[in-house]
């Protein structure tokens, strides 16, 4: 019942938003037009990346065996697991919104929580194309110091959060 209500509210809010955009364009209401163009430019940016990301996730789901992920990134894995996911994160494109579905697939294949959180954190701050871009505007020194400080902090905080949740037998529950 609650779920139905939530869905209805969401649907109504989205419809209202759509009507607002449409009306703004028809009546030439400039704030509404600005919001509309923000919406479209960001949607296009995301639609360029998301289909590829989900296809790769799909291939990962069918080809990579759970035992293999568990062995390398699961509970029994050592420190090298963090290195693997940071390298994986380096190749991630887009932003956090791409990292979440990837991280979720990793988790479902048996990756331990601290490694999953390291992946998310690293996908935010260690993406290679982004870092090159950063260095060209902010200077190499800036990027170097930022990386050196942020990577250890991400690993440490992820281990802490992962252990904290696993000790409490916390299960990731999507949407809850």
């Amino acid at each position, binding site marked *: 019942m609650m779920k139905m209500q939530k869905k209805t509210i*969401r649907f109504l809010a*989205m419809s209202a*938003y759509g009507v607002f955009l449409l009306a703004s364009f028809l009546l030439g209401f400039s*704030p509404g037009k600005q*919001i*509309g163009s*923000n*919406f479209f430019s*960001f*949607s296009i*940016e*995301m639609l*360029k*990346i*998301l*289909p*590829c990301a*989900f*296809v*790769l*996730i*799909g*291939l990962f*789901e*069918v*080809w990579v065996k759970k035992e293999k992920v568990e062995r390398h990134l699961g509970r029994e894995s050592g420190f090298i697991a963090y290195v693997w996911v940071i390298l994986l994160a380096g190749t991630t*494109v887009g*932003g*956090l*919104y791409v990292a*979440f*579905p990837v*991280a*979720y697939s990793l988790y479902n294949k048996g990756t331990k929580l601290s490694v999953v959180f390291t992946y*998310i*954190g690293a996908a*935010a*701050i260690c993406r290679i*194309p*982004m870092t090159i871009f*950063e260095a*060209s*505007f*902010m200077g190499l*020194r*800036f990027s170097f*110091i*930022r990386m050196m*400080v*942020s990577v250890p*902090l*991400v690993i440490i*905080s992820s281990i802490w*959060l992962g252990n904290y949740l696993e000790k409490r037998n*916390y299960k*990731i*529950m*999507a*949407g*809850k």
Partner: protein
Amino acid sequence: MSYLYLATGLAVLLSAIMDRKKTLVALYIAGQKFTATLPAFLTMLILVSIVLFVVPDTMISHYLGNDNKFIGIVCASSFGSLTLMPGFVAYPLCGILLKKGVSYMVLAAFTTTLMMVGILTYPVEKEYFGVKVTIIRNVVSFFIALLIALVIGIFFGEL
């Protein structure tokens, strides 16, 4: 960007050569997962479109340039947490601000929160990891960003 398409295309091709049935299953899973999260992505896009209107770049530039470093950092980390910008928009903006004399420390607070803390990505993150984990991760990331800004400030002699 085109590398992404190239890599994805090659991966699908390779997969299809090895096992056509498995590849179809993979594409089906991809479609299922994509449509399942579509409402969350849509919610995020709507929030982004509104926030970017309310908090435009010019406003961010204005507040980041504050003479008081403490206020600068507070503003930078708040804006960084609240908004969402792709790197190719954020870094050129920071480059301009740097030339205008905004400190490295303030810009570090801005870019790091921009990348790590996502109030606008909350609908998507919650969809996968639940409310509790999402809140903890974002709060922790916020403090990490402040620490990074502090260290940058020390190294660049701005403190």
